[in-house]
């Protein structure tokens, strides 16, 4: 038997022992490490084995994708034919067909505005941010018309377009109002402070749906006699106020997390209140609260679906109208799953982005 000898430090690396690598070992550690674990795994595998093939069967294999009414669909599978038939409705609602280019154009401009906000190394970002700030007004003009464009009644708004309109308006306006409310709540001027507290707590204490009812039934009482404003505008105001109360609480968390020394340092430099807030306090407080802000955005976006209760037809509303259509009777599961997937994709995207931001901003422990 010959034994090879090595000088210290020259022994080649040996492969890891065969019982600590490979799929078998992975299974041992993760699924069958001990008896209770094995039982749990077996039960889980059994449940998945009976549910997943059945679900795939129903969702895809036995499903019908093309057809004109419910009767064209197979009975033992999902019926996705309604999507193709009603896709236009799902996207544009009842927006006049000749004017739909305006919706498409606003969507493209929205994509640019979002890119400007999210992409930090965009060329000419300063100008692009100004563009993003005025975008809601441009889009408002494009979508409703007037000043050279054919006016479109907001009652014709619907589908994805309406969901996005409500969501983006709420997001764009709730942030500044939320910042003001949060500052108001932290203010040492008692009247402003208690007004902010009262407003925030009132809004957070009632469900959004009661505010929407207020918008649809009694807001007109509080307007000057004879004036009448559009239901969508009233809803937008309520959704914005609702989201700003929640936003204010998130930002207050960020403000409270800042040490007092920051404000004192700003004071000792001779900055006045607004300068101190704009240059020292808010940039730090907003950075801390970005994940919370994005979560509030997601919540707001999901809450837009509530407008169907006062009769606006957003994505869910169009879906619900399809359920009651006699040609597509009994399709509620498919329709709601379709709408659910739509919301899931958009919300999950936002949640992932927030996670990414959180990791990027969470530099404290790494340096």
């Amino acid at each position, binding site marked *: 038997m010959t034994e090879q000898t090595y000088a210290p430090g020259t022994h080649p690396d040996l492969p890891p022992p065969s019982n600590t690598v490979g799929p078998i070992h992975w299974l041992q550690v993760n*699924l069958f490490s001990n008896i209770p674990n094995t039982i749990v795994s077996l039960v889980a595998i059994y449940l998945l084995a009976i549910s997943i093939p059945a679900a795939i069967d129903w969702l895809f294999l036995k499903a019908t994708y093309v057809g004109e009414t419910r009767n064209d669909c197979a009975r033992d599978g999902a019926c996705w034919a309604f999507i193709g038939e009603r896709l236009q409705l799902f996207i544009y609602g009842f927006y006049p067909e000749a004017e739909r280019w305006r919706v498409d154009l606003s969507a493209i401009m929205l994509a640019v505005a979002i890119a400007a906000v999210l992409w930090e190394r965009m060329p000419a970002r300063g100008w692009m941010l100004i563009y993003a700030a005025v975008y809601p007004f441009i889009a408002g003009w494009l979508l409703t018309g007037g000043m050279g464009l054919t006016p479109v009644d907001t009652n014709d708004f619907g589908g994805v377009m309406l969901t996005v309109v409500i969501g983006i308006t709420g997001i764009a306006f709730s942030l500044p109002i939320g910042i003001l409310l949060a500052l108001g709540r932290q203010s040492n001027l008692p009247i402003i402070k208690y007004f902010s507290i009262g407003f925030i707590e*009132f809004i957070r204490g009632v469900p959004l749906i*009661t505010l929407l009812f207020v918008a649809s039934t009694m807001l007109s009482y509080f307007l000057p006699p004879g004036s009448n404003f559009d239901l969508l505008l009233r809803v937008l105001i309520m959704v914005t106020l609702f989201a700003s109360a929640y936003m204010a609480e998130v930002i207050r968390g960020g403000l409270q997390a800042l040490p007092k020394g920051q404000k004192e340092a700003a004071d000792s430099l001779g900055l006045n209140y607004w300068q101190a807030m704009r240059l020292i306090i808010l940039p730090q407080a907003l950075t801390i609260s970005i994940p919370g802000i994005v979560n509030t955005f997601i919540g707001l976006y999901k809450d837009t679906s509530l407008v169907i209760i006062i009769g606006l037809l957003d994505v869910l509303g169009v879906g619900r109208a399809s359920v009651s259509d006699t040609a597509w009777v009994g399709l509620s599961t498919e329709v709601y799953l379709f709408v659910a997937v739509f919301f899931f994709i958009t919300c999950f995207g936002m949640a992932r982005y927030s996670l990414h931001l959180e990791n990027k901003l969470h530099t404290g422990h790494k340096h």
Partner: protein
Amino acid sequence: MSNTNPLLKAWYDKETRSVIVQVIAMAVILGFFAYIINNAIINLATLGKDINFNFLWQPASYDINQHLIEYDSRSSHFTATVVGLINTVLIAIAGIILATILGFILGVMRLSNNWLTQKIAYVYIEFVRNVPVLIHILLVHGIMVNTLPRPKQSVNFGDTFFLNNRGFQSPSPDFQPLFWVVAGVFVGAIIFAFLFSRYAKKVQDETGKHYPVALINLFAIIVVPAIVYFLLGSPIAWEVPALKGFNFKGGMVIRPEFIALWLALSLYTAAFIGEIVRSGIMAVSHGQSEASHALGVSSGRTLSLVVIPQALRVIVPPLTSQYLNLTKNSSLAIAIGYMDVVATIGGISLNQTGREMECMMIVMAIYLTLSLLISSGMNWYNNRIKLVER
């Protein structure tokens, strides 16, 4: 020189300036309210309406399909409001209980060593919480309406419970006088359990002696009343539902709208609670349980005495807001026709009487009160469990 101008001087003084700013703010706020109230008065006068709550005592003349107190269409709007409020509270309590149980299970699954359960919980949580709760409610309701059989083909659980598209039929209890003895024993057992836990804790704090509190209390609350119940000769007569014609007669029925709303709200909120529980348990440093093991404390008691009390401190505040959310989300009941407070006073009563102002004020006042009650209850609990710092 501008320094000599008394107005500017006043503006540069911090105290005076804050008074000025507040007076202006007050004037703006009061002015705004005066303006909208004035508008409201003019508008109401034009329509010949007034603000008057007397309509509450007029007959409501509509039916409510789920009422836990006496109600028919001749009852007043006030009774309808109370019925709606009870339904809201019922769904909120039932939802909070189920959501908490499911949420804790999900949170533990997320932290399990088992790869499969961990991933199942992850996929569930991510899917459910990124879809609006209203879609969950409509989806669950839709599935129930489409898949549950007619009463004749009910799913039969031992001829006593039946599940069909009219709801879940179960026997209804008919309490006989002797039953109240059992009820008394039960209440007594709960009081005993409460006092005994305090006593056991005191003994443990002073001497270190440990009683099996959970076991004894469980015995007192469940076994003792059960024994008394059977000794007294089962003083509840159960009325079993039976199929007569096209529907079931007798017994109790839990309506499908309630089941759908209850499941949807619980499943939705459970996803959020699962994440809260997970982060709460992860916030307890691993050294805590290692230290406990090093002291020779068993795994079960490490969990109940070391890990859970510390995790609860992190869990309770966000859990409170989830409970509040669930309660507020229960107002979406109106989408599937469950008659909660929004659907009764804020829906049908409002439409029948045309008194939008009064009805919405009542609905908002009710929700504000509920929110206040839940948050003060949870604050009380939070104060009890929070870290006592010296």
